[in-house]
C-alpha cells in the first residue's frame, strides 16, 4: 500500500490536486522558542474553540491561579478555559474577536507570581473514557488553527473503526514555524503522546506527516518515531510535497491514506483521526503534569517586526505586548495578521489577545500589503486548476452574483474550505474567498428557509 524510499520515510499515497506554490518565508525556523516575561494582564475569551461559548465561573475580584478553571460550558462541543496567570479578576465583559464575532472575556491582572492552582495533579488515565474526560478538562482544542475541541474529535463512535492516527506537522502556511519547533524541541512529548493516544483509543497505525521543506524535523523524529510495531502496526513518518494547502485536514487524510472524505463528512467517516503535532505533544505533557492549556507558542514575524522569533506566551496576552517583546515595529505596520498569510485574519489593532488556536502574529509594512484593483475574469482557469477541492471558483462567482442557489449546491460550493488558493492565483485579483463565503451563506440561508 505504501511506497517507501530507502530511508524508510513514507511518501504520500496520493498527492494533493491543485494547490499553489507559495514562498515559504520560514525565517524563524532556527529560532528556538523563548518564553515571554509574564504580562501585567491577560484577557481570556470565553470563545476559543468551535462550539458553544463558555460561561465565566469566576467573579470580578476573585483571586485565581494558573490552571484554575475560569469558564466552562455544559454543552458537549465546547472546551473549558483556564486562568493563564495568577492574580485577580478585574473585569468580565464583552470583546470583539478577530473574525468580528463578539464574546465574553475575563480579564485577569497578574500578580507576577505565576502561582500554580492547588488542585492540579496528573489525571488518572487508564482507558479511553478517562482519556477523553481528561482531555476535555485540559481545555485542549486543535492547535493548528481551527480550534475544534479535541475531546469531541477523540470521542468517535466505536463503529467508525478508526485505523489511522495522522499527526499533522505539515505547516503549509508561509512564515509559521511553531509546529516545526515543536518537532525539534519536544519530539519526546510528541512520541509519548502518540503512543498514549494510539493505545487508549485503540488506533492501529500512526502517520506523522510533514512537508519536505523540514528535513531537520524528519531527522529528529526518525531517530525516535519511525517504527514497525507488532502485527503490522506502525508509527511512521511521511514526507509530503511542500505545497499549500497540504496541511488542510481533508488533504492530509488523502495524502496519508489515499482516502477522500466525502462532502459534509469528517475524517472519522473514512477511518482517520487527524491531530496537530502541538496538540498531541500537549496531551502528553498534560497527562504527566495535569497543567491545563494555559500557554502556547507563536511565530512573530513579518517585514514590520524588529526581531522575529518564536515565543511561548500565556494565553490571553495582548498582541501589542508580544510585538514589543520582539523589539516592536521597525517600520510602521500596514497590516497585522492573526495566523498565516493564506488563511489568517487581519486585525484592527494590536489590542487583541492570544487565543488557544492562534499560531502566529505577522506584521507587514506597506510594501507587503497587497492592493491590486479587481479586474474582469478572463476565464484563464487558474482558480479551478488551483482548487484542491476540484471546484470551479469562476463559475461559483457567476452563480453567486445571480443567486442561483440550486446550481451553487450542485457544483459543491460547501466543500470549499476557504484555503485561498483560487484568490492567490487569480490574475484578475478577484476576491474569491469572499465570494465563496458569500456563496456558502446564500446556500445556508436558502436551506434555512425550507
Amino acid at each position, binding site marked *: 500500500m505504501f511506497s517507501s524510499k530507502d530511508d524508510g520515510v513514507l511518501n504520500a499515497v496520493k498527492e494533493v490536486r491543485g494547490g499553489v506554490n507559495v514562498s515559504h518565508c520560514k525565517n524563524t525556523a532556527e529560532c528556538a522558542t523563548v518564553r515571554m516575561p509574564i504580562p501585567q494582564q491577560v484577557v481570556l475569551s470565553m470563545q476559543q474553540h468551535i462550539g458553544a461559548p463558555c460561561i465565566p465561573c469566576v467573579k470580578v475580584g476573585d483571586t485565581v491561579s494558573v490552571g484554575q478553571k475560569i469558564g466552562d460550558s455544559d454543552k458537549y462541543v465546547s472546551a473549558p478555559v483556564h486562568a493563564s496567570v495568577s492574580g485577580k479578576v478585574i473585569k468580565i465583559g464583552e470583546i470583539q474577536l478577530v473574525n468580528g464575532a463578539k464574546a465574553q472575556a475575563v480579564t485577569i491582572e497578574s500578580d507576577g507570581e505565576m502561582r500554580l492552582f492547588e488542585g492540579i495533579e496528573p489525571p488518572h488515565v487508564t482507558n479511553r473514557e478517562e482519556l477523553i474526560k481528561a482531555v476535555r478538562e485540559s481545555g485542549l482544542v486543535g492547535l493548528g488553527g481551527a480550534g475544534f475541541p479535541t475531546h469531541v474529535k477523540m470521542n468517535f463512535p466505536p463503529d467508525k473503526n478508526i485505523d489511522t492516527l495522522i499527526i499533522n506537522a505539515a505547516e503549509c502556511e*508561509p512564515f509559521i514555524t511553531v509546529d516545526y519547533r515543536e518537532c525539534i524541541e519536544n519530539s519526546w512529548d510528541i512520541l509519548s503522546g502518540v503512543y498514549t493516544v494510539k493505545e487508549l483509543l485503540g488506533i492501529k497505525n500512526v502517520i506523522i506527516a510533514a512537508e519536505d521543506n523540514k528535513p531537520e524535523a524528519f531527522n529528529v523524529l526518525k531517530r525516535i518515531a519511525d517504527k514497525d510495531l507488532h502485527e503490522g502496526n506502525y508509527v511512521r513518518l511521511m514526507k509530503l510535497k511542500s505545497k499549500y494547502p497540504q496541511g488542510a485536514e*481533508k488533504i492530509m487524510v488523502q495524502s496519508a491514506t489515499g482516502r*477522500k*472524505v*466525502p*462532502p459534509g*463528512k469528517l475524517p472519522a467517516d473514512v477511518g482517520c483521526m487527524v491531530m496537530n503535532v502541538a496538540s498531541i505533544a500537549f496531551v502528553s505533557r498534560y497527562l504527566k503534569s495535569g497543567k491545563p492549556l494555559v500557554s502556547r507558542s507563536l511565530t512573530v514575524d513579518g517585514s514590520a517586526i524588529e526581531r522575529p522569533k518564536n515565543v511561548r506566551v500565556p494565553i490571553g496576552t495582548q498582541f*501589542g505586548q508580544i510585538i514589543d517583546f520582539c523589539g516592536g*515595529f521597525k517600520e*510602521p*505596520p*500596514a*497590516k497585522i*495578521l492573526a495566523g498565516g*498569510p*493564506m*488563511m*489568517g*485574519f*487581519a*486585525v*484592527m*489593532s*494590536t*489590542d487583541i489577545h492570544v487565543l488557544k488556536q492562534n499560531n502566529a502574529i505577522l506584521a507587514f509594512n506597506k510594501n507587503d*500589503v*497587497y*492592493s*491590486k484593483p479587481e*479586474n*474582469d*475574469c*478572463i*476565464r*484563464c*482557469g*487558474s482558480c*479551478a486548476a488551483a482548487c*484542491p*477541492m*476540484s*471546484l*470551479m471558483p*469562476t*463559475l461559483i462567482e457567476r452563480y453567486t452574483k445571480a443567486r442561483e442557489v440550486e446550481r451553487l449546491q450542485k*457544483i*459543491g460550493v460547501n*466543500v470549499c474550505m476557504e484555503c*485561498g488558493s483560487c*484568490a*492567490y*492565483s*487569480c*490574475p*484578475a*485579483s478577484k*476576491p474569491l*474567498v*469572499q465570494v465563496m*463565503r458569500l456563496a456558502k451563506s446564500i446556500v445556508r440561508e436558502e436551506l434555512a428557509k425550507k
Partner: protein
Amino acid sequence: MSVENKLNISASPHVRSKTSSKRIMLDVIIALVPALIAAVFIFGYRVLAVTATTVLTAVIAEYLSRKAMKRHNTIGDFSAVVTGVLLAFNLPVTIPLWMAAIGSVIAIVVVKQMFGGIGQNFVNPALIGRIVLLSSFSTDMTCWTEPLKWRTGDAVTTATPLALMAADKKDQLTGLADMLLGVRAGCLGETCAIALIIGGVYLIIRKVISPVIPLVYIGTFSVITLIAGNGDFTYLAYQIMGGGLLLGAFFMATDYATCPINFKGKIVYAIGCGLLTAVIRLFGSLPEGVSFSIILMNILTPHIESLTTPKPFGTVKEKKAKKEAAE
C-alpha cells in the same frame, strides 16, 4: 497607539501571486513577436502597416465602445492589442488597410464588447473578424503574393500550398525547409512554422497556456490526415505547416474566453477542433478549415464545459454509488 487607524483590513489570503491579466496578455504579445518579425522578412514592411492598422483600430474601438456603453476603460489590459495582432496574422499582406480596420472593429465591438468585454465573448473575436472579411471581400482576402518578392518589387500572385494540394498541383509546392521557415504564400502571420512553435513553447513555459489544446488538436488532425493520406508523412507535414493550423492551435484555439476551463473539457474541445479541421480540408470545398472549426468548437464550449465539470472533492459518482448500494 497611532498605528491603529492605519491598519489594512481585508479578507484572506493576504498574499497573491505576481500574475496579472496584463502580464498574461503581454506574454501572448511577446510570443507573437517572432512570427511578426518572420512575416516582415517574408512579406515586407507592409506587414507592419497592416498590423499597426488592426492593433490601433482594435484599441480605439475598445476605448470608444466602452465609453459609449459607460463602462470602465479596459485598453490597459492589452487584450485588444492581442486581438489586433491575431487578426492581422490572419490577413493577406495585400489587404487594403481600410478592410483590415473593419475587421478589427467587428472583432472588438460586435464580438467582444457587445457580449460584455473580456472573458465574455463566446467566439474568438479575431477569427470572426477574419471570417466576416472573407465573406465580404473574398477577392481581396484570397489574394496571395509570392514570398520574398517584395524586395524586387514585382508582386506576383500565387496559390497557397493547401490550394495547390487541393488542386493536385503538387509539383508547384515549395520544399519542406521553406515551409518550416514560412517562405510560402498565405496569411501574413501563419506561414513561419518555426516562429509560431517558438511562440507557443514560450507560452507553455510561461504557463500562459496548457499544452493540452495544441497537442491534442494537432495530434487529432495528424491521425486523420495520415489515415486519409495513406500514411504519407510528407503530405502530413505540408498539411500541418501549409495553412493556419499552427497559428490556430497555439494562439486561437487556446483563447481563454472560448475554450473549456477544465482538463477533460480541453481534450474534448481540441479533439473536436482537429476533427473538424481535417474534415473541412479533406471533404469541404475550402482548402482551409482552421477558422471555422475553432469557431464551431467555441460555440460548443459551454456545453462541453458543463458535461466535463469535475466532481467536488470526495463526491462519489452517482453510478458508482448506485452500484455500491446494490452490492
